[in-house]
């Protein structure tokens, strides 16, 4: 039996064929890898955006922009908004004492995120005025001069006796604030788009310091976003865009996440992901 091996030409053809097949498999592997990384990046950015979209409306939903004594929105801009963020809710357990500027709150029945914090919170006090109409109801603003705990509520239940300071408006003061009136503790909060030392943009928040009377440092919450990654639009009750804080009835929020270079992102790239929502202010006067 004669045994023939492969000729050189046959061998070379075989090597070239194997090379082509191996090369295309490698290309396939590479593009799959790239696709996987892009998708992982999209999931990350999308998760971030979804957090932003659930975080911002939580506070904004609770605002009252149309109160007789002024809007809960302090200032508003396309990429920042500052407002009175409601943190707790108490109720008076006896009528307010206008002469001493004191209110007595039921201590064991408060609601909200956290109890009143004198270092951060101011108060809004509901003034009923004429019980026969809703048109004259309003929220008085006040700071707290002192707080004393005790058992002054009906049935000797725990109470907070609050002496108010800087009541706005000072006149007619606490008249018309009835037994059972709600009192809300709020702090001043701003959401803004903030650039860090690495030139990245973040959704950030900061609080207004009561004692320092200035805005505290911005705390980044999530990102990175694009340079125009937070876009806020303010609408009045008819759905038209408004620039007056007292007329705001709903706020449109769009956040745009910055994809990293791995995900094919650059500041102006269409690969950047965005999410939009709209939130109506629930506590507006009607």
């Amino acid at each position, binding site marked *: *039996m*004669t045994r023939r091996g492969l000729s050189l030409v046959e061998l070379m053809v075989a090597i070239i064929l194997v090379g082509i097949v191996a090369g295309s498999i490698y290309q396939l592997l590479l593009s799959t890898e790239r696709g996987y990384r892009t998708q992982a990046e999209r999931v990350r950015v999308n998760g971030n955006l979804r957090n932003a979209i659930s975080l911002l409306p939580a506070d904004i939903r609770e605002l009252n922009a149309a109160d007789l004594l002024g809007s809960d929105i302090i200032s508003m801009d396309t990429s920042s908004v500052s407002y009175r963020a409601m943190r707790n809710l108490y109720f008076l357990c006896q009528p307010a004492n206008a002469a001493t500027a004191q209110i007595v709150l039921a201590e064991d029945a408060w609601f909200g995120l956290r109890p009143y914090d004198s270092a951060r919170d101011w108060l809004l006090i509901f003034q009923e005025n004429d019980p026969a109409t*809703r048109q004259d109801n309003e929220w008085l603003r006040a700071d707290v001069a002192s707080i004393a705990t005790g058992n002054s509520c009906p049935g000797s239940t725990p109470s907070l006796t609050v002496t108010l300071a800087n009541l706005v408006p000072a006149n007619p003061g606490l008249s018309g604030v009835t037994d059972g009136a709600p009192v809300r503790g709020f702090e001043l909060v701003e959401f803004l788009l903030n650039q860090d030392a690495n030139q990245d943009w973040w959704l950030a928040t900061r609080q207004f310091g009561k004692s320092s009377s200035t805005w505290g440092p911005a705390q980044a919450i999530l990102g990175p976003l694009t340079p125009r990654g937070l876009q806020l639009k303010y609408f009045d009750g008819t759905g038209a865009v408004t620039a007056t804080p007292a007329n705001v009835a*709903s706020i449109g929020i769009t956040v745009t996440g910055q994809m990293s270079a791995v995900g094919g992102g650059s500041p102006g790239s269409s690969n950047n992901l965005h999410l*939009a929502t709209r939130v*109506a202010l*629930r506590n507006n006067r*009607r």
Partner: protein
Amino acid sequence: MMKQDGMTLVEVLVAVLILSVGVLGLVSVAAAVTLLIGQGQRYTTASALANQRIEMLRSQDCANLAEGSAVEGKYQVSWTNTDLGNGSRILVTVTSPQRHTARNDSFTTTISCVQ
């Protein structure tokens, strides 16, 4: 030289047939998954659009509520309201494009109109 037994043409054809049935099955699964992902994306967008519209209606005075429709990209959003006396029931319908037909998703909510 040694006698070499190859495969007959029929054998090759049968093998190719069986292989292609298997491969086609895999391909159709991949196609179905792609279709479902696309559908899920459209429904998510549809519910986000409905949510936006409901928030817009909620911010309006009850007296100004009226039915209407709007085009948002490839989606059509339409809404109607039913007066309940001290409230209003809102029905938002989002029509999302499909390959051959269109799909309607309905969302309903009630807005308080107590004065």
